């Protein structure tokens, strides 16, 4: 799918959907920005939406910087930052972020998302996981499969739209197959669906 069309595609998804967004590592920067634009501005910018962005690849401060460039208001986005602590980069925490000490505490991710969904109830909640590959660096496949099965099923039952970012490299190979059983569809950003 052309990066420019992702926003329209995501806008048409019903609540409770789970979608994997597969980015081409060769054009990662362009595609990543296009996906952020689609998730944070196109659907996250809708009046009744609230985005919970789980950052494992980059610190929340980095993604928040990009979100600000896209004019995303701070009250529409909350971060679950899973990487800053482990990078020893926690000196200036964001007000709209909650921090988890390690990407290995997968239950903590579920609990923080649960907390944010209860604390800020919105008709249209969107959870973004950035990314499958980064979580896979820190967690064994078996644990990650269990996590995604429970996490996605729970979010589906709560009518939350879940978007999982991943790259199509070899590392994600086995996980991509696992994830395909759990998501409603996989969108190949920049390629065919």
């Amino acid at each position, binding site marked *: 799918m052309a990066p420019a069309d992702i926003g329209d595609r995501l806008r048409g998804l019903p609540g409770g959907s789970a979608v994997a967004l597969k980015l081409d590592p060769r054009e990662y920067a362009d595609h990543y920005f296009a996906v952020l634009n689609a998730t944070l501005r196109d659907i996250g910018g809708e009046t009744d939406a609230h985005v919970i962005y789980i950052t494992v690849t980059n610190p929340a401060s980095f993604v928040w910087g990009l979100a600000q460039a896209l004019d995303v208001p701070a009250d529409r986005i909350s971060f679950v930052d899973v990487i800053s602590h482990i990078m020893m980069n926690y000196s200036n925490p964001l007000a709209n972020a909650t921090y988890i*000490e*390690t990407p*290995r*505490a*997968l*239950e*903590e991710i*579920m*609990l*923080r998302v*649960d*907390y944010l969904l*209860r*604390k800020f109830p919105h008709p249209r909640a969107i959870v973004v996981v950035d990314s499958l590959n980064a979580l896979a660096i820190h*967690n*064994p496949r*078996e*644990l*990650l*499969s*269990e*996590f995604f099965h*429970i996490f996605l099923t729970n979010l589906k039952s709560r009518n939350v739209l879940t978007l999982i970012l991943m790259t199509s490299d070899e590392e994600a190979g086995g996980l991509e197959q696992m994830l395909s059983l759990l998501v409603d569809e996989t969108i190949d950003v920049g390629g065919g669906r």
Partner: protein
Amino acid sequence: MDAPAEPAPTAPAAPRALMAPATVLERCATGISGLDDILGGGIPRGNMVLVSGSVGTGKTTLCLEFLVRGAERGERSLLLSVTEASDKLIQNLSTFEFFRADLVSDGSLVFVDLPALYNKLGLEGEELSADEIDIVIRTIHDLVRTLGVKRLVLDSLTSVCYRIRRDESIRDFMLRLGQSLSDLGCTSLLVSEIGPTQGRYSMHGVEEAIVDGVILLWNTRRQGDILRVLQIVKMRGTAHSRAQYVIELTPIGLLMAPHLKGSQQEGV
């Protein structure tokens, strides 16, 4: 020949309840997110439950939320504190969004310092005699009956038992206290402090046999990181989950998520 009469339309059959108990006991909903789900709606009313765990596992916070949620629902709630002064507990509680100071001021949420009560009753010896144990039970009974208390927390049972000591006396104290509270329709949580690797649910090992339920809390490690875990070990009068759950003490209250099993863990 007349056409056969059309059969009268019938309502679709309701699904059969496959595991429904013969009698459903009245529940005391804890109000704690997730906990009532795994208890089938809450703790059976009048049950006496041990909340067991080592330090820093969330025992007191769980119990305080149980009391606040009850007071919010119009059930007068009483904390008998042995280890921490009421003022300090209320100060700690005020950091949670679920706490409402008006519940204390209007008498829905009552704090009593047990050491002060001991002094008032003249129970100053290191070990309580049989008569003194009787006085303690009657005093708690009278307090619960007079105030119309529906939820009680004793924090901690372990501290009370330091002054009872003999296993037979502890067993007798708990049997009589449990019966007394149950007769008054009061659901109680008794905090039990145990070591991290104790392998039982109480200091003396007799408490868990007497109570109606045991909620166990402990810390577990995953590759060096510590997670807080909760498990319902026992609960009379209801079917309940026996799975393990990771808990988090958030500003809006205790939250639970299934404990993932994909890797080796150890208790700490």
